[in-house]
């Protein structure tokens, strides 16, 4: 390492420090924006340092500059356009797409490095070969897996688990081939073997995500995020760059933590999710509510009376709320209730959305102040002194059956909605949720079912409350 490269390495450490401080500032919504800006500053520093290094190096050909500059400009334009136009409901797809390109770029670096050094007389085998191979393996799996995940979230690929006979055997075979070819390359430099590693890893990524159902997406996205980080760190080992190593490790840590949080919130092991969903997926069989005697149905006017004369209301939003684009309607209703002096808060289950924290962003977009968005453990004790719990588009996360052993959702942490004095459930039909189970909450004598599309229900409730309170 020449003296100059060493100094640049120090600048990279500064950039890495900015990333850490930036992430630290994200521990509160009040400082989070500053955190993002500190992180941007770190990235700019790293970018400038890299440019200086390139210019100082002086080995870049004219064609090389054109390739790099045009590539960067085109990529930036694509990123900028996507980031500015994306709907908040489509955030999980965008994050998946970013995971894909991040993992893909990391893999390309390793592939490129391998090809280049193979053409050199010195050969490719060295201390970093193992990192090169790990980078290719993880990066390629992330790339194809994230594309499939994004496709599922977007609806281009059916959201329900796609399972076919022998799928698991193919998965195992692909993994064996990819790792076997990689192991072979540790002792013998071989371009065809690299190609096999790449192709088998890409196929494995596809096969890994296809059998996973839509509601498990929070786990999958987090996991792929962790993979991307790891791939970037491996790329850092390959080219001996500290900024990549630190940034990759940070992202790897973040993705791993989120993966664990999400899996815990569903009380399912990671292996269980990867191996395949409950089998029903998003599109649960809609069992029509055929005047079931045990279920009490309610009209907008009656629901409005309950809400308007409550002193404490907790709103429990689920993915159905976002799917119906009802978040603005909910916020409007909540505002009217608040203006009447009613205490309104939102109980957010960790998996109430298609990625970690998704529901919070959707509600923040609808102008809901963040102090009202409460985490499960924090708000659960409050249900007992709540007059009305308004459940909108959430199902399994409110099912008291989870407290009993012996069923599909046993042990899953749930919101204690059944503790509230009265419960209003807004739902289109009596269809079951992701787990394909009846929700016992609906048969509770305290529960009234308001059968309607979430968006229309919110408009009706808002109008009814307005009429009522004048």
């Amino acid at each position, binding site marked *: *390492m020449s003296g100059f490269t060493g100094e640049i390495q120090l600048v990279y450490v500064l*950039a*890495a420090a900015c990333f*850490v401080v*930036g*992430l*630290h500032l994200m521990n509160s*919504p009040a400082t*989070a924006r500053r955190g993002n800006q500190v*992180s941007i500053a770190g*990235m700019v520093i790293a*970018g400038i340092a890299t440019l200086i290094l390139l210019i100082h190096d002086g080995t870049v*050909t004219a*064609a*090389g500059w054109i*390739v790099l500059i045009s*590539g*960067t400009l085109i*990529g*930036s334009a694509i*990123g*900028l356009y996507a*980031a*500015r136009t994306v709907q908040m409901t489509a*955030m999980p797809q*965008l994050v998946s797409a*970013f995971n894909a*390109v*991040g993992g*893909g*770029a990391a893999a*390309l*670096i390793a592939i*490129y490095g391998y090809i280049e050094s193979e053409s050199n007389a010195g050969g490719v085998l060295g*201390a970093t070969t193992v990192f090169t191979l790990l980078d290719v393996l993880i990066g390629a799996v992330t790339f194809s897996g994230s594309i499939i995940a994004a496709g599922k979230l977007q609806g281009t690929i059916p959201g329900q688990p796609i399972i076919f006979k022998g799928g698991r055997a193919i998965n195992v075979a692909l993994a064996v081939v990819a790792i076997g070819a990689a192991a072979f390359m540790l002792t013998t430099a071989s371009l065809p073997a690299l190609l096999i590693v790449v192709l088998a890893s890409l196929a494995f990524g596809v096969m890994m995500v296809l059998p996973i159902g839509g509601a498990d997406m929070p786990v999958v996205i987090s996991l792929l995020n962790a993979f*991307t*980080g790891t791939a970037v*760190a491996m790329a850092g*080992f390959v080219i*001996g760059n*500290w900024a*990549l*190593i630190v*940034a*990759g490790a*940070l992202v*790897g*840590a*973040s993705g791993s933590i*989120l993966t664990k949080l999400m899996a815990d919130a569903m009380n399912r092991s990671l292996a269980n999710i990867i191996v395949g969903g409950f089998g029903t997926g998003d599109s649960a069989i809609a069992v029509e509510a055929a005047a079931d005697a045990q279920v009490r149905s309610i009209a907008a006017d009656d629901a409005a009376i309950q809400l308007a004369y409550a002193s404490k209301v907790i709103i429990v939003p689920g993915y159905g709320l976002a799917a119906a684009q009802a978040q603005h309607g909910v916020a409007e209703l909540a505002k009217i209730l608040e203006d009447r002096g009613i205490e309104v808060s939102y109980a*957010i289950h960790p998996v109430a959305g298609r990625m970690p*924290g998704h529901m*919070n962003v959707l509600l*923040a977009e609808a*102008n*809901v*102040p*963040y102090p009202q968005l409460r*985490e499960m453990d924090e708000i659960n004790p409050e249900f007992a002194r709540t007059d009305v719990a308004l459940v909108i588009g959430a199902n399994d996360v409110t099912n008291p059956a989870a407290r009993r052993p012996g069923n599909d959702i046993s042990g899953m942490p749930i919101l204690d909605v059944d503790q509230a004095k009265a419960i209003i459930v807004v739902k289109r039909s009596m269809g079951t949720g992701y787990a394909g189970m009846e929700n016992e909450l609906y048969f509770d004598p305290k529960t009234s079912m308001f059968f309607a599309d979430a968006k229309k229900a919110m408009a009706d409730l808002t*109008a009814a409350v307005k009429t009522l309170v004048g």
Partner: protein
Amino acid sequence: MSTALVTDLTIFVLALLVGIEVIGKVPATLHTPLMSATNSIHGIVLAGALLIGVTAHTVVGYILAFVAAVFASANVVGGYVVTERMLKMFRRKAQPQVKAQPQPELDGKGRQ
């Protein structure tokens, strides 16, 4: 094992521990912005793409470097912009709606 590699591994392990410590404190409400922020942080791979792209002298090399640069820069720019967009929406208090919302007016039923 070379000293450089040992140093790299040390940095990796320490950064991993720092990451776990720092990110464990991020509240659930910010998990989506956190994820897009970390997305843009791993966009640092752009620096790697550029550094390795400089040695390109073959067509295959140029293509790989170009695609890596496109991927990585989309990642870094898009990630930061969308994170900023999301974080701007998080407010302590509800702001008065600037945009005139189509208010469903009471349709002649009158007030009570």
